[in-house]
């Protein structure tokens, strides 16, 4: 069977999400070995407009049904599964965002496909996709392959490079799926954006996280300043979320968010195994802790022993100077 890729392109705020472009990028890179086409799928009334200029896809299936403007998992899964069938997709790609992971499971169920969630490495072998994914909160990795069925994969955000290609016209075709009666029974009715448009830790390229070592909620003020200088987001350990110093949305770790930023700065965080589960795939890890024996130093690229209350403001000031000097 010839290989064929379908890539789900998640739309947020009128644009295709960067993490979806990462999935598109990886599907396109693997095309060299797998052959076939890379087909994008876009849902909602803006789909046709968004499809133009989607460099990297060979063509795009658009489902411009306005009912899809408000996300409903079942309706989106029906549409995506139908696009997968009609395009003969053998690998269906998602980004492992909240929406992407939901949809990946729902589409796999509808197609009777195998599902590899939250993959961190993809390779092609003998015309098939082989995926590597973390299990046990990142304490182990498994390499998996579909037993001949189609394969659905979701890719961990920030791990794969997005496709950079010059925008070119992409051919589109419209699909009008046959929705089931219950497909719109549950819909997203509202999205409250994070306060001040703050970046999400799962998507930021820089994450500055704080733990109990910050001493209290006010201890996060200097972290916010540091994050701002670096254009990053502020994360937190579970200990401080449980204490009510920070919202759960900011929690990094096994029962929080999994992050893979370019730079992760852990401030006053001991480095418990469940915290490492959420950040050990970061490119560069900086640890600031007053205890030289803290386990966080074992995974840190760079470590400074000292009081966060002193080091963080000094670091912010030094970075401001360094960044200003480059301009």
């Amino acid at each position: 069977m010839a290989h064929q890729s379908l890539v789900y392109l998640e739309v947020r705020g009128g644009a295709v999400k960067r993490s979806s472009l990462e999935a598109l990028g990886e599907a396109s890179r693997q095309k060299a070995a797998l052959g076939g086409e890379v087909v994008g799928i876009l849902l909602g009334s803006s789909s046709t407009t968004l499809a133009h200029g989607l460099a990297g896809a060979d063509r795009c299936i658009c489902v411009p049904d306005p009912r899809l403007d408000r996300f409903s998992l079942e309706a989106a899964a029906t549409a995506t599964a139908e696009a997968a069938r009609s395009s003969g997709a053998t690998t269906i790609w998602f980004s492992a965002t909240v929406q992407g992971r939901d949809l990946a499971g729902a589409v796999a169920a509808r197609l009777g496909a195998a599902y590899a969630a939250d993959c961190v490495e993809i390779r092609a072998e003998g015309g098939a996709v082989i995926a590597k994914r973390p299990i046990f909160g990142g304490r182990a990795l498994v390499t998996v392959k579909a037993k001949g069925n189609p394969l659905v994969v979701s890719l961990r955000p920030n791990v794969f490079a997005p496709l950079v290609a010059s925008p070119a016209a992409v051919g589109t075709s419209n699909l009008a799926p046959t929705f089931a009666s219950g497909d719109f029974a549950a819909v997203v009715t509202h999205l409250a954006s994070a306060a001040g448009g703050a970046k999400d830790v799962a998507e930021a390229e820089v994450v500055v996280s704080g733990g109990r070592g910050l001493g209290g909620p006010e201890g996060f003020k200097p972290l916010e300043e540091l994050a701002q200088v670096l254009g990053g987001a502020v994360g937190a350990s579970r200990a401080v979320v449980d204490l009510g110093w920070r919202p759960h949305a900011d929690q990094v770790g096994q029962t929080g968010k999994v992050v893979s930023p370019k730079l992760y700065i852990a401030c006053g965080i001991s480095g418990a195994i469940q915290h490492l589960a959420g950040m050990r795939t970061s490119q560069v890890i900086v640890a600031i802790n007053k205890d030289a024996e803290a386990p966080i130093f074992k995974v840190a690229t760079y470590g400074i022993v000292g009081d966060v209350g002193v080091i963080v403001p000094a670091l912010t000031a030094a970075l401001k100077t360094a960044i200003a000097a480059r301009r």
Partner: protein
Amino acid sequence: MNVVACLARVPDTASRIKPGSDGKSPDLEGAQFVVNPYDEFALEEAVKLREAKGSSLLAIHVGPVDFQKELRNALAKGADKAIQLSTTGPLGPAGISKLLAEQIRPLLPATVFLGKQSVDGDVGATGAFLGNELGLPVVSKISTLKIEGDRFSATREVEGGVETIEGALPCIFTAEKGLNEPRRAGLNQIMAAKKKPLTVETKSAPPPLLDVLALELPKDRPAGRMLGEGVGAVAALVTALQNEAKVL
């Protein structure tokens, strides 16, 4: 409306993992097994709905290893019935959801609670597969749930915000941490639970659709560098980030 809670069995999140002798499955010797942490929130929410609506609550577990103590505990917390579907051989979300659906179908209309993901496989797809089996909508990762009549409104954290999802029951929900405060069973409830029905049935499930080729431990991160103590080390850090790691 009937209520169902699905409970998975997982090794404690602090347990050490090493590859087994086949190089494909984990060696979990010495690990402590617990109810999947997210399923505690699922069960609590199910008990709350059961109390509010005066219906019947079934707790289900699929798996080969004795789970009666955990299911008794679910009965003590408020489940009316519990069942373990004892299986042999590996399980995937497709197989598990088929077995769960067989039990739930006769109870429809039923609202089903699962955890957002089990902390061993970290897949988080059983809810979606079950939704497809039962033809029910799935609302995942909820951190609040309000039910009025046969309508619900749930919220969940997504990247950069909080989504509200509204719809009609019956529905499948998967629970995020913090959905509620799971209760502890009191002594009287523990005593009463001994009389509640708990059955174990042997079943066979279709095998997983994925082949595991290898299991490995994450590579150690390349040895890091201590830059020293106190503010004196800050300049070295900025230089390293700029010139060595090139992340600025």
